[in-house]
Structure formats: structure tokens, C-alpha cells
């Protein structure tokens, strides 16, 4: 009885978390764009760069490891995204559900997804970049070498000029 309950809970959770439509990769969307044109799809990846709000709607670019696809979504959906990926951040992993356009008529031929919903699947975070000590030591040694050679060059120039 307990096993059956646990199994039921697992099934319910996986049903709730799973995308409503076929999960498609960026490679499939770009290389097989005709097949998915106008269809409802699910696309999952990291929000990168900037959230560009334009009135009631806006753009976010979502990268799934292959390529990034532009997602056009209501501002309310976009504001669920707290982190967009850059050097200092890992962006939120988002599940986008909406209609894929091979050449969107609303956006002058863009290949895009018009999102109906955006769900943050994994929250992004700040990235720590610890200093590589070996690199720091190498930098100090190389800098000293460069300064020594600069001084040697100055000395030679002075000497050379004085002699000529």
C-alpha cells in the first residue's frame, strides 16, 4: 500500500513537471524548422544575456547547449526570470511552452517562439571565479621579465645613442 502511494506521488510529480508539448532542441528547431512551424512546442534551456522588455511583451534568448532561440513572451512571464546567463551568472533554466515560428509574420521573418508560459525549472545563480594561483604566479614572473627587458632596452638605447 505504501509502495503504491509513493509510486502514485512520483507519477503525479513527474506529470506536473513534464512539458505539456513535445520537448524540442534548438538544433531540431533550426534544421527542421518546417516540421515545427506553427506548432505548439516545449523548449528548455538557460536564459542568457538581457531580458529586453518592449511594452507589454519582450524578448529573452534561451540557449539549450546547441544554439539560442529568441522567445517572445508577456512581460509578466519574463519577470519570472531572475538570472540571465553572463560571465558572472548562470542563468535560470527555463521551460518555455508556446508556438514556434519558422519565419514569424509578426516579427518580420524571425525564427522564434511565442511563449504562452515560462517556468523556471532550475534557478540560476551568481558564479564565483576563484583566482587561479598558478596563473597569478606566472603573471608575476612574466611581468618582472617584461620590466627587466624594458630596462635592458632602455639601457641599450642610451648606450647606443651615446656611442653613435
Amino acid at each position, binding site marked *: 500500500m505504501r509502495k503504491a502511494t509513493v509510486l502514485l506521488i512520483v507519477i503525479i510529480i513527474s506529470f506536473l513537471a513534464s512539458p505539456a508539448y513535445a520537448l524540442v532542441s534548438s538544433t531540431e528547431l533550426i534544421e527542421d*524548422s518546417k516540421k515545427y512551424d506553427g506548432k505548439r512546442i516545449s523548449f528548455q534551456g538557460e536564459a542568457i544575456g538581457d531580458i529586453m522588455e518592449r511594452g507589454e511583451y519582450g524578448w529573452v534568448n534561451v540557449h539549450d547547449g546547441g544554439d*539560442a532561440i*529568441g522567445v517572445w513572451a508577456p512581460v509578466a512571464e519574463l519577470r519570472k526570470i531572475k538570472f540571465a546567463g553572463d560571465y558572472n551568472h548562470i542563468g535560470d533554466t527555463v521551460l518555455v511552452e508556446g508556438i514556434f515560428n519558422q519565419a514569424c509574420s509578426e516579427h*518580420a*521573418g524571425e*525564427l522564434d517562439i511565442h511563449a504562452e508560459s515560462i517556468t523556471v525549472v532550475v534557478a540560476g545563480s551568481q558564479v564565483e571565479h576563484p583566482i587561479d594561483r598558478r596563473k597569478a604566479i606566472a*603573471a608575476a614572473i612574466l611581468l618582472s*621579465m617584461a620590466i627587466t627587458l624594458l630596462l635592458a632596452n632602455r639601457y641599450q638605447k642610451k648606450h647606443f645613442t651615446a656611442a653613435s
Partner: protein
Amino acid sequence: MFLRPRLIDLKIIGFYTGKLILGIGFAMLLPLAISLFNREWGPVIDFVIGSSIAFSAGYLLSITCSNKKEMSWMHGILVVPVAWLAAMLFGAIPLYLSGHFLSFLDAMFDAMSGFTATGLTLIQDLDHLSYGHNFWRHLTMFIGGQGIVVVMLTLMTGGASGIYGMYVGEAREEKILPNLFQTTRFIVSVTLIYLGLGVTTLWLVGWQIGIPPLRSLFHAITIFVSGFNTGGFSPQSQSVIYYHSATYEFAMMPFMIAGAINFAVYYALFSGNRREIYKNAELLTMSAAICTTFAIAAVALSQIGIYNETFSVFRRGFYQQISALTSTGFTTVYSSQIPDLWGPLGLFGMMVAMGLGASIGSTAGGIKMHRLMIIFKAFSLEIKRMLLPPSSVIVEKYHHLKKNVITEKLLLNAFIIGFAYVASYIIAAIAGTFYGYSFIDSLFQSISAGANNGISSRIPLVDAPSALKIVYMIQMWAARLEFISIVALIGFIISSVRGK
């Protein structure tokens, strides 16, 4: 009989190459400052390492190759290809240290692509690259686009006597002003005027389309530098698609065209000769080429029927043709869409536009309009010769700053350089097919590299064999220098071995 070069010749070449390497070291201080401003400590260390190695090598060459002899024209032309290789080597160091490249060869590929203002890239995970490294990628395009050796050495040596050899070696055929130092200053001044205009425009448009002000400024600087120098690197992995904005695309387009115009034409305009813009044969040829290649793209895009509105056809087709013809290499469509969706005619239009290129004496690559115009004039001359009586004196003229006559020397130059470009496209395409890629994809990629364009084909460059990457690197290098100085270098190497 070749004369074997003497030690002093090597010393002169080494001395000026050292000066250039020092210049590369100084240039790295800019991204270092940007990394400091953004508190990117790892990249700060990368640029300290990179610039220290460049300074050390530069000073070492200055010390060991120190000499009193004046640089000759021939030394000047030989310094250029060697210095460009050195720039690639030292420029690649901070890129490789970023950890965004699979190998040092890949970092060198990007450095060569940057300095030659090509725009092909092998970088991994560009969207997480630091501001400092990203700025350095774009700065390489600025340095290379302006003329890496001439600008740096004119500034650092005050214009040595053999510097004109370098000027020619870097594929700038016309001296705009009598003094080369003044010419370089004029080129840099024009660039700075456009820099102010371009960065302000793109910064405001970027802000207006939803990019925060500071980030918009960074995007504006990088996109301007890349666009005006007809390079094609972009700060994000999606190229111009990232912005999802027709306004942004159209705002950058005038600067892409401006960078592809001969700087001598700017001098004529600034000197009050405004009619030059309507009369210049090269500009007229370029306008005709833009119209023709866009007409091909428009027909192709209308045929495939995926772009339903005229504006979509214009936005995709016109932008891509401008990007191809000016050899910028920005894209508003994914690279595989061109061969997959645009059909054979669209692909053909793109290859023609990429292969032809824009103006001589500009930052653009490719065969170039001036040569195309001369070749057309040569055909016209031959037809006239056939039709008119043998005793007729036939002269073919064209307007470029003044009335010019088509001479045999001009014709020969246009045919030889034009032939060298076409040969480079075909040889690298054959190399691509040798490694199992389709001929069309290989040809597209080879034209893109050989015309310093940077639009990618379906060939996954990162996974391509090292030998093929090296072929593309040689193509970018030779094409940017327009072959002459490379031939001179080969001659120099041969005479070092076989000369007496």
C-alpha cells in the same frame, strides 16, 4: 638568380616585428582596464600574462635586432606578413587563457579571424565570456581593420622610410595624402568620427530596445567596431539575431557600408569634392552590385515562400546581402538556414556577394569593386577593339578621384589579384571536400574565409580537422594582405635557402 638575404635584412625585419609585438602588448592594456573596471580578476591576470609575454618578446627583438640601417621598401613589405603572424600568435594568448577554446590552435584561429576582420569563430560558450576577453576579440578587428602594421608602426616610429612598403603590403594601394603619417592620421580620424556617431546611435537604440544602459554601451562599442571594420564578431553567440530588432539592424547598416568605402573617397568629400560620391566608378559599381545581389536574394526568398511580407524579404535579404558584400559577416538568420531554406539561388546570391567584396582602400575583403570595374572595362575595351577599325585609338576611362585611363598595368593587377582570390576560394573548397564535406558547403565556407567575410556554412568548424582550420587561417591571412606580401615572403624564404 636570387640573392641570399643577409643577417642585417633579418635584423631589420625582426626589429620592426618586435615593435609591432610591443604594440599588441600595449593594445592588451585596454581590455585589461575593462576587466579591472568590471572586477573580472581572472581575465585581469590573463591580460597581464598576455601583455607581459608580448612586451618581453617585443623588447627582446628590439634588443637583439637593434641596427642602424634604414628599412627599405622591400623590408617593409616583408615585415607585414611576419608581423601579422606574430599578432595572431600573441593575440591568441589571452583568448586561450580565457578557457573558452578547446585548443591553442582554435584560439589562434579566432585571433587570425579577428585581426583579418573575418569573423569566423571557434569560441565555446561565448555568452558567458568576460567583458575583457569579449572586448579583446573586437579590438583585434579594430586593429586589423585599420591596418595593424601601418597604424602601429607609423605611430611608434614616426614614419620610417620603408613604411610605404608596409602600407602596400597591407593591401592599401592609394596614398591618400602625400605623407604616410598624415594618411594614417586621416584614416584614424575618419574612424574616430564614425566611432562617435556609431557608438552613440547604437547605444541609444540598444537602450530603447530594452538593454540596460551600461550593457547597451558595451554592445554598441563592440558591434560598431565589428561592423565598421567589416569584421563580424558579435558579443553574443547569436550574432545580430540576439537583438530581435529591425531598428538595431538598420542602425548598424550605414556603418557597415561606411567601413566598406574607400578612405580616399572620404578625403575627396572632406576636401569639398561632394560630386565624387555620384561620380566615383567604384561606388557606382558597388551600388550596382548591391542592387543585383539583393535582386537575386529577393527573387530567391520570394520563391521559397517562407517570408510572407515584403518587409520580411527586405529585412532578411537586404541585410544579409549588405553583410555579405561589405564582408562584415553579421547574420540575422541562423547559418544553416541559408543553405537549408534559401534555396540554390539564395545561396548563389550570397556566395557571389561574399566573393566580390567592397572597395579597395577600405576595411572590406574579397575581390573588390575597383578590380571588378576594371575587368568589366577591359571586356568593353576588347569589344570596342573588335568592332572599330584597326586604326582607331581606343581609350577606356573611369572616374576615381580624377579621370583615369585603363592601362595594361592596371588590368594585369586586377586580373592577377582577382585570379588569386578565385584560386583561393577553389583550393580551400577542394580541401573541404577532401575532408568529406559537400562541395557547396566547402565552397561557401572557403569564400567566407577567403573573402574575410565570416558567415558560416553548415560545416561545424569547431569539429573540423586541424589541417582544414589551418587552411582557412592561411586563406584569411593571405586574403587580408591581398597575396602580394605573402608572395614576397615566400620569395624571401626561397632565396634564403637557394639564393647566392
